[in-house]
């Protein structure tokens, strides 16, 4: 396969035009994002209900989290959303190398986020601040229901972290595609869809951070 061939994206046989294909893909992606929101929605509804039922344990639970690390991760994800958006901008301007650089920065942000998460998790698990029945923290007196707070903490951030990992894999794939010069000024639908996914993952964290770290 010569490089000139690789650059041309062929419209799938059942679409009439590239425009139709692009708009179909985007609609599909938005619908998929709806399913993601509803899936996380279950957790958020659960959070609200238990927060109302046991407000005290959520207050105490938040004191075990380091808001500075949470804030750092928030900044990291926001920056990554910027670099993600920039990569699409550069593709639109035909600057492939800059787009690749931005994607690599996005991926790097993903690694930083997961690294910080790893530190937070390992520190807590070391202390015995585990979810539900596995909870074994005894250093200071805690409320009876506190393990439930950590169930929410791990379920919500865990599912979110899983999405960050998936997003990182997708971004890695986009770097490969961009490296093969698959995108051009008129075709970059996969990149845009991955961008949408990454922004959603970012957005969910924007809600998780105050709900878990900054409860008062």
């Amino acid at each position, binding site marked *: 396969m010569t490089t000139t061939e690789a650059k041309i994206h062929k419209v*799938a*046989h*059942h*679409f009439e035009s590239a425009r*139709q294909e692009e*708009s*179909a893909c985007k*609609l*599909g992606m938005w*619908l*998929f994002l*709806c*399913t*993601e929101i*509803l*899936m*996380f*929605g*279950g*957790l958020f509804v*659960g959070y609200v*209900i*238990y927060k109302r*039922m*046991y407000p005290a344990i959520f207050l105490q639970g938040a004191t075990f989290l380091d808001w500075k690390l949470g804030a750092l991760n928030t900044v990291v994800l926001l920056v990554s959303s910027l670099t993600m958006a920039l990569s699409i901008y550069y593709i639109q301007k035909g600057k492939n190398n800059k787009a690749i650089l931005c994607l690599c920065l996005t991926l790097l942000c993903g690694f930083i986020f997961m690294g910080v998460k790893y530190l937070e998790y390992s520190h807590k698990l070391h202390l015995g601040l*585990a*979810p*539900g*029945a*596995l909870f074994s923290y005894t250093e200071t007196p805690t409320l*009876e*229901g506190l*393990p*439930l707070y950590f*169930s*929410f903490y*791990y*379920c919500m951030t865990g*599912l979110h972290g899983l999405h960050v990992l998936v997003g990182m894999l997708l971004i890695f794939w986009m770097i490969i595609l961009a490296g093969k010069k698959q995108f051009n000024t008129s075709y970059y639908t996969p990149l845009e869809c991955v961008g949408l996914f990454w922004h959603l993952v970012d957005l969910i964290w924007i809600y998780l951070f105050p709900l878990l770290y900054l409860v008062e």
Partner: protein
Amino acid sequence: MSEGKNYLNEKKGLSSWLFTLDHKRIGILYMITVFTFFLLGGVFALLMRLELFKPGENLISAALYNQFMTFHGAIMVFMVIIPGIPAFLGNFFLPLQIGAKDVAFPRINLLSWYCLIVGAAVALCSLFFNGVDTGWTFYTPYSIRTDNGTLWVVLGAFIMGFSSILTGLNFIVTVHKLRAKGMGFFQMPLFVWSLYSTAIIQVLATPVLAITLLLLSAERLMGIGIFDPKLGGDPVLFQHFFWFYSHPAVYIMILPAMGIISELITTFSRKTIFGYKAIAFSSVGIAAVSFFVWGHHMFVSGQSEWVGILFSFITMLVGVPTAIKVFNWVATMYKGSIKFDAPMLYANGFLFLFVIGGVTGIMLATLAFDVHVHDTYFVVAHFHYVMVGGTLMAITGGLYYWLPKMFGRMYNEFWARISFAFIFIGFNVTFFPQFILGFMGMPRRYHDYTPVYEPLNQLSTAGSWMIGVGFVIVFFVVLQALLKGEKANSNPWGAVTLEWQTDSPPPHENFHEAPMITKGPYDYN
């Protein structure tokens, strides 16, 4: 010209099927899968009915009965009725009916089939871990404590959920983006409308089931306690989450069936459908209301009385769009040139049984009455009148109706009608007595009962054999049609929707020339 190339003979070999991206072939894959699971789920049903022939432990132990009940429910719901119409008939006919070459995302379409297969395989793994006895609803805290393979079925249902989501997503995009030139939303056949409404539910409700099942899995693996009262969790929250999906899910099961009935009634009455827009909007209306009625499964769960009253009222609202459909179907038949071919028999069977199922549904929505018959056979009878009397009648009717298009062969009309007689009569013999049993107070889900219920239970079991015979006949009618059936022309019923304007079976890209739409979907004149 059924001699030429078509989607069936275009490529050969197993891998050309297992890796196909053609929506028609994927539809056939789903057909084979769904029929296999239907057989399995049906065998469990027959065995349960056999056990209930007499009071006491006869054929199988109480524990085994609970497992059979769970398998019957889980298989029929997650592997048969939910994928049944959308993923099998919908996959095949939605692109054909809107004049498209394929669904919007053929690869995702194939992926959805693999999700179903993998999910089913994971669920069946539970058999190696003592089976499952929670019922298909997996209510906590029992499903957390019970010592068996519940986790596998829960994970399997989670994976199968993705199959449903992906199908729905595909259909919504296909309907929006791939309609033939000249086809507005109001030139779409009503089957497409119903699939579109179904797809909205699939996309919006299934993710909630996904998170519920994930939390339940985490509950079993790590004891997170969110649904476990021992750790401060709330088991009723599980019921809310579960029914937030599972009530809309019963509309995933019935809406496409209603779509089939719209097609059958108009075709076999040789008459434009009455109230096209009313039927189309009532599909969307049912989909919308379906998200606000889940609490009627929980009238006795301890939810607040006011919530109960609200849910009761909204549930009754579902009766409005549903009745609109039924009246329009009957009005379509009025003064039509009706032909009672097998599909039309099934459509009329649907009307009869579905109305009974629907009206008893309104009864169950009434708070005081529901408390009386809650968890009795009345509920079992109601549910089966809607799901079997409704959905299965429609899918069988639809199967006969579209068989000539799918395979280019006619089925044997005489035996198809005989199958209807067995299924229709057998169904009523099986399930009507269960309404009475429910009134008498017989609780559901037990392997045993007091002798006073014996005669009606025996009648019910005898009926189940008739249904069994009926479906065996259906199976052989289909088999005979595939092997030796007469060649079908492209439009044996004289129907006017787009799928009948192409060859039987259709060519790879559905139409030789891209269709142009100039008139309504049911213009017989």
